[in-house]
């Protein structure tokens, strides 16, 4: 199959998302949202879900979705990255949403996807534990089946939006292997604790479960397979967000290089600055190509590369391009770029946190070789 939408459709989608975000997710508005109790703009969240229908894009139509692909979702995520929108879109729709979609569990999908799709449910995915490693099996958290019910005990860490999520998809060990469970906020024995975070736009929490009631998603032992597929989708989606954010850094740097004068010249006329910007541009072009190809691979387009390879390439290249652009943007700005008031550090923080989200450079490079059979 080929793309569901034309280039022109996707440009319309981009323009629509950009119009809303440039009006409602400015640096100042984002900072207000971050300081609020939820940590994001709840009204904007609802508007993006209901008016623009962004949350439901990649879900199956029978569960409230509109059946678009990651190629289209990537356009939206890229705009969210550009605005550095605080909020659980990636967490709820991509991480938790993909786990439910991939699980093949129709009952779980019917129970949870419509709420995620209309924005009324904020879902998260709890995989990491005390050591912070992203893994697909070997969890210390344990679920037991007693009297016809599952209950879950253990500690999860670095859970995105863990204190505000109403639905938590948890990976835990069972007698029949690693499995995924759904836990609702407020369940017995569940406590959550917000952590101080590097990336202040994406809060993280520690969750403790003590004989907490849980619902099995799919069948036992299925977690590694589901999480493998979730990782491909998540890294492909994150790549789009990283590219959008990296472009914002480049635009900021270029604007400043034209605006700022020293030695009687615009600093952008000096090769030292111009070449930094050119390097950022080149790496972002390559990163965007990788992000687009990963999205095409997730969507199973006919001439796309294998999804495991494309997603791993995109995660590596886009993580590094964003980190590079975020760091170089600060250098182009000089002292002003190092201030709390300037948005540059928010991108820098997001860049490093995104790069480390699924294990970091050592892990993702080895993953790429394994996906290529090396």
């Amino acid at each position, binding site marked *: 199959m080929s793309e569901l939408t034309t280039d022109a459709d996707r440009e319309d989608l981009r323009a629509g998302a950009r119009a809303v975000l440039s009006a409602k997710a400015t640096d100042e508005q984002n900072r207000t949202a971050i300081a609020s109790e939820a940590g994001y703009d709840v009204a904007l969240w609802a508007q993006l879900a209901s008016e623009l229908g962004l949350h439901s894009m990649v879900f199956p139509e029978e569960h409230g979705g509109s059946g678009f692909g990651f190629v289209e979702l990537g356009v939206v995520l890229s705009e969210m990255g550009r605005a550095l929108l605080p909020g659980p879109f990636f967490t709820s729709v991509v991480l938790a949403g993909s786990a439910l979609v991939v699980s093949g569990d129709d009952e779980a999908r019917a129970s949870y996807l419509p709420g995620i799709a209309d924005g009324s449910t904020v879902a998260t995915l709890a995989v990491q534990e005390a050591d912070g490693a992203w893994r697909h099996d070997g969890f210390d958290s344990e679920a037991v089946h007693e009297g016809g019910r599952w209950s879950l005990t253990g500690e999860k860490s670095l859970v995105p939006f863990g204190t505000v999520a109403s639905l938590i998809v948890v990976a835990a060990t069972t007698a029949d292997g690693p499995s995924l469970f759904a836990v609702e906020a407020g369940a017995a024995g569940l406590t959550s604790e917000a952590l101080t975070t590097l990336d202040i736009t994406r809060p993280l929490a520690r969750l403790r479960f003590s004989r907490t009631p849980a619902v099995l998603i799919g069948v036992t032992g299925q977690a590694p397979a589901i999480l493998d597929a979730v990782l491909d989708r998540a890294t492909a989606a994150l790549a789009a967000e990283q590219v959008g954010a990296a472009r914002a850094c480049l635009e900021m740097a270029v604007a400043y290089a*034209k605006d700022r004068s020293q030695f009687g010249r615009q600093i*952008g006329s000096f090769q030292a600055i111009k070449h930094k910007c050119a390097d950022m*541009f080149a790496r972002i072009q*390559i990163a965007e190509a990788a992000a687009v190809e990963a999205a095409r691979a997730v969507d199973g387009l006919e001439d796309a590369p294998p999804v495991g390879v494309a997603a791993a390439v995109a995660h590596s290249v886009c993580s590094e391009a964003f980190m590079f652009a975020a760091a170089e943007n600060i250098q182009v700005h000089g002292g002003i770029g190092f201030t709390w008031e300037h948005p540059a550090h928010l991108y820098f923080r997001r860049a490093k946190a995104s790069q480390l989200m699924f294990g970091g450079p050592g892990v993702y490079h080895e993953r790429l070789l394994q996906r290529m059979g*090396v």
Partner: protein
Amino acid sequence: MNDIETFTAEVRAFLDANAQRFPGGEAHLAWGKGDDHTGYFSDDTAEVEAAKFAAARSWQRTRYEGGFGWITGPSSYGGRELSPVHDLVYDLLEAEYDVPDTGVISLIGLGMIGPTILAHGQQAIKDRYLPAMYRGDAIACQLFSEPAAGSDLAGVTTKAVQDGDVWRLTGQKVWTSVAHQAQLGMALCRTNPDVPKHKGITAFLVDLASPGVEIRPLRQMNGGAEFNEVFLTDVVVPDDHRLGEIDGGWRVALTTLMNERASVGGENEGALARVLSDGFLASLLHETGHGADPAARRRLAEITADLTAADYLNRQTVRRLVGGAEPGPEASVSKMMWAQNLTRVAHLAAELVGPRLTADTGAWGTYSWTELLLGSPAFRILGGTEEILKNILGERVLGLPKEPVAP
């Protein structure tokens, strides 16, 4: 069948009739098979080089007679008047066959100078030289750079003075690839020293057999001698060999240079096709005993990610062009990344091979990496230095202010 499918079938029939197909995809490129070469430049002896040029010209003639000598060219000169996409389709299909590498005649002569002659040449010149070039009879080279005009190409000082119906050319050109095998040279000359430098240049097509042309091969750091110094001493060039207007040579040169950046970085022929083929670097990792070495694996993965992403960018560019889009800034980005990535590959290979890179022990896939390594410094110079490419991206794409220039 659409137009591309019909064309594909036609190309396939031509290739099947005239060449041997490699068995099984990229199998002929696998580790340990065939010629042990990794280089972009050759360091062939004169006899081997002459044989390669003869083979390249002969295969170009076969292509021309089969109707594939100039796929994008006008039919009046043996062309097919098809799109760059058809050209690309042809290249991709031909890569599956064991045919002579024609890079030496096609990259500069047919890829860059032919289109320039077509766009700016006078009628008699087009009629006389274009069919000869695309039939493989005449090889053309650039007479652009000079000792004092490299990146600042518009500073050329080779003089052309009008003398009735002819021009007299005097000066020195340098870094002219394949000049020693060429019959024609496209020269940029100073025709007016009293105007801003871009406005006083005229382009000419020079018959290299003319009296006063002296070509001296320059030996490159890799040991080969593919480029030359060309000395022009009172060389007579008829006015009908002028390309474009008098003093309008800079526009003519831009046509040539645009075709250059589009060709470098897009395709990898010859030994580079093997180096960059699927799994070849992984074979290097394993064959050199580094399959379980985490540091080596990390470096290979970093380079593989960047090479693969650059490949994705090239594929997307092709898809956009097929869809009718105009070429964007991808060419400069691709060329820059091509140079950087290949340089990294050369140094990674050297590290993996280890001390056996330093002497030819006869082991397959070891000393041969010196070819890539010793060619690598040129990658970031040829086809526009990295610094100039970054200026282009900074100024023309990002809109940053220009460098201050000397008055």
